[in-house]
């Protein structure tokens, strides 16, 4: 063994010396490469020596030796296959190949060893190139400039990767066609790899090579794969910018529609008035009708109390007084419902506008019929009482409505207008519960006056004066029945005690007291009831106080100074001392001089003039 080793070493040394010291190193055949593509076979290649000299190259042979066991075999065996691997090669098939076993080969020329090499097969593994390269497009960037592709291939067919005998790793290289330098990617173990960020306007070349894992040497490159990326359509990068007509038209229409709807359904009155000018409605100056709507009677009271501002407006304004047509003469002649009808019908037509009127000065004249408008207040003697600070009756509930209904029915106008007005009256009464319109009240006063004037003659059961309890939105006047009429109405047992107390039937809701009646009540009943009646009235109703109520209140409040006695005539007019809203007015106890005898004789409806004279 040792001898063999020594001999072999010497032989190798000698051969190497011979090789290095040969005259023509280039002329000797040499081993170029030995490789095993799949760890099952291997082949060795050598070069023929360059024939510088005239000598023939000689007969080249390859001998190999392998150590199968601990010992070297004695003899060198010749190459089993000079042909399969090409010229100047020796091919060892799988039966001659053993892995992890040292081999030594030597090249002889004419019997002389020219080259020798020792190796193990696992050290010379260089796989074949992969096959079946193809690529697929992964995605294209949003800019349309770059794209990613996935390159796939198959392992070399002779490498048995399925059974795991050999494990390969691959390296991909790519470049643009007109480039010279290949770009390398890191080795991968899988047979597909993505290539990112290729430019769409360029063509690329791709090649793959493989090596055994753990080895250093790569095999040959595969065939080049040409990658021609799809040309991006030029739409994305169009320079021309088409004006988006469709979008503009659609959005314009949409916007116009929105604006139009806003205009039409908007609550903005200004805008509305621009487009749809409203029909003028009558307007009463001075008090904002919204106050009535909101039921802010305190403010109205306050306004009223500022009589410097308002009283003149109210009571100096005679123009509306003229609207009331007093036809006392007509009462006898005409049918009972004629004036009433006219009043009612006209009211029916107009009161809607009256009550719904906004603060618009312009419309007053248009609301009333000419006959009513032109009626002068001739019957001022009688009709002075018509103008007054009327106090619309406030209906307290269904019972009141029924009362009125019944009362109205008991006062049969027996015409078409009345039943027609009843319903709106009821409706209005309901609506106006919290809305004692001064305006309406004032106007109702006139109508009340008118009605009252007309009613007594036409209606048997009511007094000469009947209070207008309310004005319906339809314009009809709802009258309260006469004060003597109450006894028969069973539904109207609102305050039976009052009835019982007073011989004259007071409607408890009636804020108007005739002086005589008041006197009667005062005489008949203790003050307390009346006062209690009156007082709560004022408390509850919160508002308009007639002179009678004033006087009664005065009678109540000024107990010290004025005995609420029937013997003393209660002054019709009392100056208002203090306005205590909402409780009402505190009146001066002093009796005011009554300049006009007219007031004494009747339940006093005070005209504005008279009131102005009285009030300081």
């Amino acid at each position, binding site marked *: 063994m040792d001898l063999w*080793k020594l001999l*072999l*070493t010497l032989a*190798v*040394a000698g051969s190497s010396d011979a090789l290095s010291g040969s005259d023509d190193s280039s002329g000797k055949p040499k081993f170029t490469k030995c490789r095993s593509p799949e*760890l*099952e076979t291997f082949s060795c290649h050598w070069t023929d020596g360059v024939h510088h000299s005239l000598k023939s190259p000689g007969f080249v042979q390859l001998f190999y030796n392998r*150590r199968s*066991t*601990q010992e*070297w075999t004695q003899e060198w065996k010749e190459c089993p296959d000079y042909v399969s691997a090409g010229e100047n090669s020796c091919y060892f098939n*799988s039966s001659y*190949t*053993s*892995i*992890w*076993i*040292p081999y*030594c080969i030597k090249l002889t020329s004419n019997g002389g060893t020219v080259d020798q090499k*020792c190796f*193990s097969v*696992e050290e010379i593994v260089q796989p074949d190139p992969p096959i079946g390269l193809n690529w697929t497009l992964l995605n294209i960037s949003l800019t349309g400039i770059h794209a990613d592709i996935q390159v796939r291939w198959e392992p070399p067919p002779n490498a*048995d*990767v*399925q*059974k*795991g*005998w050999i*494990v390969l790793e691959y390296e991909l290289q790519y470049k643009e066609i007109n480039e010279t330098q290949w770009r390398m990617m890191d080795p991968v173990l899988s047979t597909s790899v993505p290539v990112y960020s290729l430019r769409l306007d360029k063509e690329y070349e791709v090649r793959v090579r493989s090596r055994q*894992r*753990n080895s250093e040497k790569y095999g040959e490159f595969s065939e080049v794969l040409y990658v021609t990326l799809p040309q991006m359509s030029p739409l994305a990068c169009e320079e021309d910018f088409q004006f988006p007509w469709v979008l503009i038209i659609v959005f314009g229409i949409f916007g116009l529609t929105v604006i139009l709807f806003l205009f039409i359904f908007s609550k903005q009155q200004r805008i509305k008035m621009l487009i749809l000018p409203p029909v003028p409605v009558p307007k009463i100056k001075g008090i904002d009708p919204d106050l009535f709507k909101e039921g802010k009677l305190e403010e109205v009271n306050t306004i009223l109390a500022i009589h410097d501002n308002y009283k003149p407006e109210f009571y100096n304004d005679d123009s509306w007084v003229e609207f009331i047509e007093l036809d006392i003469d007509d009462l006898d002649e005409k049918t009972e419902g004629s004036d009433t009808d006219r009043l009612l019908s006209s009211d029916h037509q107009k009161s809607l506008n009256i009550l719904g009127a906004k603060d618009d000065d312009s419309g007053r004249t248009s609301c009333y019929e000419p006959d009513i408008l032109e009626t002068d207040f001739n019957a001022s003697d009688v009709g002075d009482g018509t103008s007054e600070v009327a106090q619309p009756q406030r209906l307290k509930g269904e019972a009141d409505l029924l009362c009125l209904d019944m009362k109205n029915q008991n006062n049969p106008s027996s015409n078409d207008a009345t039943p027609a007005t009843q319903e709106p009256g009821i409706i209005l009464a309901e609506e106006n519960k919290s809305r004692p319109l001064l305006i309406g009240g004032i106007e109702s006063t006139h109508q009340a006056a008118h009605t009252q004037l007309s009613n007594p003659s036409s209606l048997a059961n009511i007094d000469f004066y009947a209070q207008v309890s309310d004005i319906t939105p339809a314009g009809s006047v709802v009258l309260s029945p006469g004060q003597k009429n109450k006894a028969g109405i069973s539904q109207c047992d609102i305050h039976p005690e009052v009835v019982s107390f007073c011989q004259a039937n007071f409607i408890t809701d009636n804020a108007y007291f005739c002086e005589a009646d008041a006197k009667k009540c005062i005489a008949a009943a203790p003050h307390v009831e009346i006062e209690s009646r009156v007082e709560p009235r004022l408390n509850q109703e919160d508002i308009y106080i007639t002179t009678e109520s004033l006087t009664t209140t005065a009678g109540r409040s000024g107990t010290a100074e004025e005995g609420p006695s029937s013997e003393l005539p209660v002054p019709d007019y009392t100056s208002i001392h203090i306005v205590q809203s909402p409780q009402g007015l505190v009146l001066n106890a002093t009796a005011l001089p009554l300049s006009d005898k007219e007031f004494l004789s009747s339940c006093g409806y005070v005209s504005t003039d008279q009131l102005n004279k009285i009030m300081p």
Partner: protein
Amino acid sequence: MDSKGLSLKAGSLPLLLLLVSNLLLCKSVASLPVCPSGAANCQVSLRDLFDRAVILSHYIHNLSSEMFNEFDKRYAQGKGFFTKTINSCHTSSLPTPDDKEQAQQTKHEDLLNLVLTVLRSWNDPLYHLVAEMRGLQEAPDTILSRAIEIEEQNKQLLEGMEKIVGQVQPGVKENEVYSVWSGLPSLQMADEDTRLFAFYNLLHCLRRDSNKIDNYLKLLKCRLIYNNNC
């Protein structure tokens, strides 16, 4: 009754024969099943164990290749050591398959046992390699660190393989066979060249054996876990 019984027997006899023949045939061709216990987690854990074992063996081979190359570059240039490495390794006597056909014909239990044997055989040499390399003159740190790492990983691989064998062949207790390494004196030779050659040889053998183990394990993994379809 009798006729019925006879007919039953007659009908069942070929079936019985078929069954027996199947059993015999199957026994002869195939080796033992991988998971005889048939437990579900056996297959899963075996896959994990093999994956880990392959990773370790690959790692060890990488380290040993690098170590050998560095040593060659550093110490063995121009000394013609390679020609002398025809010397056998201490594990050459083990009946390991030397080509693909042989490996495919080896049963997986035998192959596993061979792997275990080789791994056990290297316990001692690796330990001494590290010890002696510290004393090597101007030993580069890279070589030494790799030697230390290889020794550690070899132990882990041995443990993993023993687990695999325990799952594949439960209850079979093999003798702990391994090759004895007797190269320690040469590592401690006074002569520098001799010593270097001893190292060179050992590293060369280590590289070769780690490559063998790596190859066997990859082969077994593809055969047992992936059914020859890696």
